[in-house]
């Protein structure tokens, strides 16, 4: 079923391929056997080398009509051709409004959803095509921390069972007799008392529960952790604690993070590079300074200017871009540039030509921080004051 769906979508998606001339060439590994694939996956990656390479990733959720004979009448284009690299040891922040496809990207990277088209290369292996032992090896190395620590922990399991559950699926990581000790070590690492191993989730506060979620993510010694809004459900005074913990763990275990959040100031604090998504597409991507201090895409500028600054002195004379209306439906996105319906720069060209995510021509070759990838026909710098 999934196969058929995939094929149909590939035919349709011929026109939505996002040309990204500036992302690096993927060095694919051709593994003839499962053993070779597992071996490639277990191989270490040097710091600063790409560990995860996403190319033209597409996820369309079909919209159907009818009960018995389901006809597809359209598709929600949740992720519509995005490409980026994640380097070993870095944190890539992904920001965007709700409904822009951030969480779908997270699920695709986790192979919790099947991609409609496109590839996700993990150490040169396309994980969307893996199966069996190779896929298991990938899943061990890519873990996730969820948004809501209240619903992502099973209330009927003890903390020890929750954190130790990954070992049931991957027994090679910890032999049976060793598990209890491992779980206690993990509790200690995330700053919880190892004696809490027999308690239940409801006996913990939100911040502590998120630490349990993080401990579970760490259990299998992964290389990549995908964090989907890990602190947005927490109290302000506890958020900083969890962010500090995550940064400490990154150094300690040499992790790479994909950090999805809507709080722009936290994303800036933790990220080395930031990608801005709008309606299933990457609008702009670059280092944190490039995005926050030299944004060239109008959407990024609007997003940054809308963030309230925690300083009453800057209340006056600040330029704010108030976007009109809501995000259009991803089932029927605007033609051409997706942002054009809310953009103050939009011209005829924007409705006809899809802007490519590339370094804008006017900045190409120059050494300014504005020379980073931006998907806009009229990309230019605009200074916006922000947090």
């Amino acid at each position: 079923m999934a196969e058929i769906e995939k094929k149909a979508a590939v035919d349709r998606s011929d026109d939505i391929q996002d040309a990204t001339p500036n992302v690096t060439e993927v060095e694919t590994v051709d593994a003839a056997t499962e053993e070779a694939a597992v071996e490639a996956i277990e191989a270490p990656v040097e710091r600063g080398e790409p560990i995860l390479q996403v190319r033209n990733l597409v996820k369309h959720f079909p919209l159907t009509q009818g009960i018995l004979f389901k006809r597809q009448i359209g598709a929600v284009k949740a992720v519509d051709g995005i490409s980026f690299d994640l380097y070993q040891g870095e944190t890539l922040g992904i920001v965007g409004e709700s409904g822009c496809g951030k969480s779908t990207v997270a699920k695709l990277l986790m192979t919790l959803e099947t991609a409609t088209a496109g590839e996700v290369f993990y150490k040169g292996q396309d994980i969307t095509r893996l199966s069996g032992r190779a896929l298991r090896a990938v899943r061990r190395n890519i873990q996730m921390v969820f948004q809501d620590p209240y619903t992502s922990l099973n209330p009927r399991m003890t903390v020890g069972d929750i954190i130790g559950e990954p070992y049931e699926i991957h027994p090679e990581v910890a032999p049976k007799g060793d598990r209890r000790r491992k779980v206690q070590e993990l509790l200690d690492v995330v700053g919880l008392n190892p004696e809490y191993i027999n308690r239940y989730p409801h006996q913990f506060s939100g911040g502590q529960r998120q630490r349990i979620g993080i401990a579970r993510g760490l259990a299998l010694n992964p290389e990549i952790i995908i964090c989907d809004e890990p602190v947005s459900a927490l109290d302000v005074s506890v958020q900083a604690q969890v962010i500090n913990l995550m940064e400490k763990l990154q150094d300690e275990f040499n992790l790479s993070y994909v950090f999805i959040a809507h709080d722009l100031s936290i994303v800036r604090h933790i990220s080395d590079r930031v990608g801005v998504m709008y309606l299933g597409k990457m609008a702009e991507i670059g280092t944190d300074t490039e995005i926050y201090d030299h944004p060239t895409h109008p959407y990024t500028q609007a997003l940054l200017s809308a963030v309230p600054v925690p300083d009453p002195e800057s209340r006056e004379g600040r330029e704010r871009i108030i976007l009109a209306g809501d995000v259009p439906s991803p089932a029927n996105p605007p033609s051409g540039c997706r942002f054009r319906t809310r953009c103050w720069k939009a011209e005829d060209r924007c409705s006809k030509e899809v802007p490519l995510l590339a370094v804008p021509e006017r900045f190409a070759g120059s050494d300014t921080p504005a020379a980073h990838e931006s998907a806009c026909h009229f990309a230019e710098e605009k200074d916006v004051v922000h947090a």
Partner: protein
Amino acid sequence: MTTIEKTTSATSRVEESDDGTPLLEVRDLHVEFHTREGLAKAVNGVNYSVRAGETLAVLGESGSGKSVTAQAIMGILDMPPGKIPQGQILYRGEDMLTMSNEERRKIRGRKIAMIFQDALSALNPVLSVGYQLGEMFRVHQGLSKKEAKAKAIELMDRVRIPAAKERVGDYPHQFSGGMRQRIMIAMALALEPDLIIADEPTTALDVTVQAQVMDLLAELQREYNMGLILITHDLGVVADVADKIAVMYAGRIVETAPVHELYKRPAHPYARGLLESIPRLDRKGQELYAIKGLPPNLLKVPSGCAFNPRCPKAEDICSTEIPVLHQVTEQDGTELPGRGSACHFWKETLHG
């Protein structure tokens, strides 16, 4: 239409009423809940006041008692298990807690209205938004169905919902989050109240939509010269719109200050900790300042100052004596108007 605009000086014009009494004054309010686990003291002696045209921001974490105070003012607290053992809530000098239910109903909605956080659960899913908006006019002013509907359309226009006439019959789920919040605002505004209590009005919204909604709220407040109590935990939103701030912790107000003063020189370690834990540019790559520990359990609030187990400055006196809200002064003793700090060591925190 997307607009680029410069923010202007947003200082609201605060008007004294004829006899100098504030619009709303909360005096020594206590609220407790009788639960199976014991007595939870949610609010322990809160004092604050709002004048017409003024914006008071109540800042605090979950469990600090900020929403419970608001519910007590509105008279929508569940009683039992809730109980108000002492305190006064004065609306234009009259104590609402001693009023009859009939009298309170006349104030609720007509004089004091509330905007709730989660618009999807605050609106009735089986009634059209037009019907729910019109209910205000039918119940309070006795208008006919037709007149109420016309008024509802007018209100939806007022909060800039596009195509109000066509959408008046739509149901809440057919609107986006931002539009639903506008409907909540419209409902609160319907009878042009003197005071609006907004409980986390933008927490569930995206930043771009939050900017739209806060703008709208500020504009309507200026136009009708309403008082506004804004309950939030977002230090950014507070900095943008508030005139004065009350910081709450474990059911008490720990610091009060005009907005500029608080951000410049906090006089309570908790307020200082909150401000310092905001990620800042020059601290990138370093550890964020974090207040250690967890917010207290209301069933067993620490003795003395409730913040003492988490406070970097705590000394012996902090665990034995509950600090009162001290008037904060300059080093030379001149009073700083509107400033108070419930810390034994406010002098050190402010000047040190």
